Structures are given as C-alpha cells and as structure tokens.
C-alpha cells in the first residue's frame, strides 16, 4: 500500500499513453437555411488514434478564436432570422467515433421553430484540437 501522490512515477499504477494529436476544422456556412423543426449538420472525419483510444478535446469558434473550450461538446447561442425577425438558436459542436480509428467532428444546428431559420451572417469555423490516449485497459 502506497500513497500515489508522493510518487513522481511508478509502474505500479496504470497510466495513459498519448498515441496521437492533431487539429481539424469544420466551417458552418453563413446564412444557412434550416427547415422548420429540422436541423443542419456539417462534419469532418479524421483518422486518429488506435482502437479503444479515448480523446482529450478542445474546441474553438472563429467568432471568438481566442478561447478554446475543453469539452467533447459545446453549445453556442446565436441569433438568426425567422420570417425576417431576429430569432435565437443554438449551434452544437461535438465529436464522436464512427469507427475504430475514425473520429467525426460535427457542427449541428437544430431549428426549434416551425418556420425556416436563416442562420447568422458570416461563416463560422469551428476548430477541434484532439489528443488521443490509450487507456490503462489497452
């Protein structure tokens, strides 16, 4: 029995193997029309990590690129137009595996209104910073 915090390193405790790191981006186009009660999604797939690896992710938006958020998913409030009137909506940026070694980075905009939503002006680029790890089980 030992106190793990007192060790700089020890092979008696499992650790995490960093097997990959990269960044990619997804552009959500300006003034996209989203059907009433529908959704819009834009994705980019990247090959990263080995089978069973887990991800440490940071996400940033070009509308405030000085900030990177530490999260697998992130929601931003934006304002678009519904029937020519300002209407709030949410943009969700998130990641998930689609195969053993493929990671999908997506931007999803649901339209909560029954009429078509025109999203905000100006392209918005979401950058995903990804580091992958083999957990102790592998």
């Amino acid at each position: 029995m030992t106190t793990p915090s007192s060790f700089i390193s020890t092979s008696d405790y499992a650790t995490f193997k960093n097997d990959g790191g990269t960044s990619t981006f997804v552009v959500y186009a300006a003034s996209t029309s989203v059907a009433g009660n529908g959704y819009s999604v834009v994705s980019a797939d990247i090959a990263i990590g080995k089978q069973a690896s887990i991800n440490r992710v940071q996400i940033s938006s070009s509308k405030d690129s000085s900030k990177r958020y530490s999260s697998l998913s992130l929601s931003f409030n934006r304002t678009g137009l519904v029937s020519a009137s300002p209407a709030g909506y949410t943009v969700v940026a998130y990641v998930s595996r689609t195969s053993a070694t493929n990671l999908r980075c997506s931007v999803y905009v649901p339209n909560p209104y029954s009429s078509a939503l025109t999203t905000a002006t100006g392209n918005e680029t979401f950058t995903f910073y990804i580091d992958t790890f083999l957990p102790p089980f592998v």
Partner: protein
Amino acid sequence: MAIADFLYNSDFVQDKAILLESASFTIPTPTAGYTFTIAHGLPFTPLVGGSWSTSSNFLVTYDFGSGVIPSSNIGASIFDYSLEIAADSTNIYIIPTNVSGATQTVHVRVFGIEPSDSTATLPHTASSGDVFAFSTGYNYTKPYEASKITGLASSSTTTITHSLGYVPQLTAWATNSARTFNSVFFEDVTYPIYVSSFIGGSVVDASVEVTTTTAIFKTGSSSNTNRFDYVIYYDRSGGTS
C-alpha cells in the same frame, strides 16, 4: 528541450490511474431515472473518466459524454445512445441517454484519478512484469498543475494563470452537491441539447476555457457546480498547437 518535447521525464509526475473498473449492462428504453452504479470502495470521490462501446471488444470506442451517431436522421438527439459518468464518495454512476427506441447492451471501462487533496494510501492498479507501463512508442502527458477550485457559486469566473506560452492540454471535473462529473461543459446555452436533467434537475452549466496564459473556469447562471478539479499539462493541445 521544452518539457513538452519529452515523451517521458522523470522530473515530472505522471497521471496515475488509482481505480480501474469494467462492467456491462443494458440501457433500457426509456432511460428516465435509470443509472448504472458501481461501488468504488475508495476513501474519497475519484475523478472518473473512461470509455464505452456497444461491442465487448471495444471495436468502436466512445468517450463518456459522447455517443453513437444515428445512421440516418438526427432526431431529438445528436446521438442514438450516449453515456455520461459521475462519482460521489461511494459510487460511480453511469448515466445513459437512449432515444433509439430499443434497448442496447453496452460495455464500460472506467478509470479514476486521485484528487489533488487526497493523501490516501491505495493498492496498485498495475502489476509489474505483466504489462509494460511505459513504452517509447507513446507520449506520457506531464501534469503542470493539478489542483482544485472550491466554494463556487453560480455565474462565477475563476482564472488560473500558467506560464507555458502555448495552449496546453487540460482535463477537468465539475462537482455539485451530489456528484463529480467528468468534463460535460456547456457555454452560453439556454437549454441542453441532449443531456437530460441528470443532476437533480439541473445540467452541468459550466465551462473551461484555455488560452496561452490562462485556464478560465466558469459556472453558468443555472449552475450548481461548487467545485472544479483540474489538471493542466505541459503537453500542447492538438498535438502541436
């Protein structure tokens, strides 16, 4: 050389998993109120994380907080199935969301990290000689600072400065009065998209921003997060950035 350029450096601590658990269970439908529980037996609330899969060989592995992307239309959720993880002083909680309309068997792998204020003595989680603990084929992220922020209220901002000069990797956990959650963060959001009310009627309305000089921890107006635990690493985020 910079510390971040070393795969391994004996002058710096390593992440040490002090808890390893595996389990399988079936997600019911609907999932309202269902939580899969694992007793952890530790003298503190571990900082939990891990992965899960719909196959026992973990062919496609999902992070907690992520899920299975629908094969066709996205409906009320961006995932058919997703799992979140949390812990308290007694148990680990696996919290599923299932909008697929069908039950699903899932397999989970859970690890726990010791919080920075623990002084517990603990059994080993790896047996020397059985497996290689270190391999030069991989990088081992090197913690720059592991600490906690306590006594938080809603709508709070806490800035931690670092001197790295680049955006480092970071992991964080948010704790409310009941449980400690692994990295579920929302920013500027008025309603959750796919995370249901799994913390006594409230979501983890909190965020962590990382810059070249700071890590900024925020709680939202509806947040009942009262503590963050975090690890800032010497290693750069996104491999090279």
